[in-house]
């Protein structure tokens, strides 16, 4: 297990209650060389951020959540409680894909593994297969 602070690899927590979006973004960021944790709700992210054994540099969070605390409130909580942690909010899967690509540009491997449009297309395909009207741009 390697949850302790790492000297080399930055850790990102991806917060999204839509599992298909969260998984695609998390896998993309892992392929850029980041260590990536996943939270299905803001409250999960807050629990991780409050744990002294878990080191987190960046929070990439969806804005809307179906239950509980939304991304804006999570951002405020991080600013007040963990001001050293950078927060990136993304309102749609498209914005999340592009935010992830920008993180890849400055990440451990300093290059994107592939175009963020591939991530977005994959997310859309998976969401469409589950919910025919679930496209989101």
């Amino acid at each position, binding site marked *: *297990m390697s949850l302790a602070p790492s000297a080399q690899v930055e850790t990102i927590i991806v917060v999204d209650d839509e*599992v298909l979006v969260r*998984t695609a973004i998390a896998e993309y960021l892992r*392929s850029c060389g980041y260590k990536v*944790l*996943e939270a299905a709700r803001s409250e999960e992210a807050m*629990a991780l951020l409050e744990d002294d054994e878990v080191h987190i540099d960046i929070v990439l969070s969806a804005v809307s959540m179906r239950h509980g605390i939304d991304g804006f409130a999570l951002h405020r909580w991080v600013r007040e409680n963990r001001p050293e942690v950078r927060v990136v909010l993304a309102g749609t899967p498209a914005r999340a894909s592009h935010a992830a690509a920008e993180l890849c540009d400055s990440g451990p491997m300093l290059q994107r593994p592939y175009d963020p449009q591939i991530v977005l297309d994959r997310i859309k395909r998976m969401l469409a*297969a589950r919910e025919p009207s679930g496209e989101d741009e």
Partner: protein
Amino acid sequence: MEPQLGATVTELVRSGVGGTQPSAIRTILVVEDETLVRMAIAETLRDAGYRVLEAASAEEAMALLVSFGNIAVLFTDIQMPGALNGAALARLARRHHPGVRVIATSGAAAPPGLDADVIFMAKPYPPEDVVRRVNDLLGRHAPG
């Protein structure tokens, strides 16, 4: 742009988007509603070389099972909030995805209705034991 295209195609194949699994890297789906426990198991499996998908509920796990056609092992907690618990998830997975091997875990005794081919692990356990059981189940000493 050829290298990028190559990387794209490789990733699409590896991720199972095409619905096949030619890669030797096996995919494990970890289902656990306790964040820190899920994270510890997932990270240990990743360190061992597996690709790991994470679900915080049985409902999330079903979405991943349907969307990713290449899951080798479902590792699920039995006690979870929501309409589906881990035992029901294990039954659904075995019925609709018969190629998926299942490991179920609980702090209580194994429920009586658990399928005979579902492996039961009693909590608590060190994450390394999960790697060992997954390795055994997939018939390999090291993932790759």
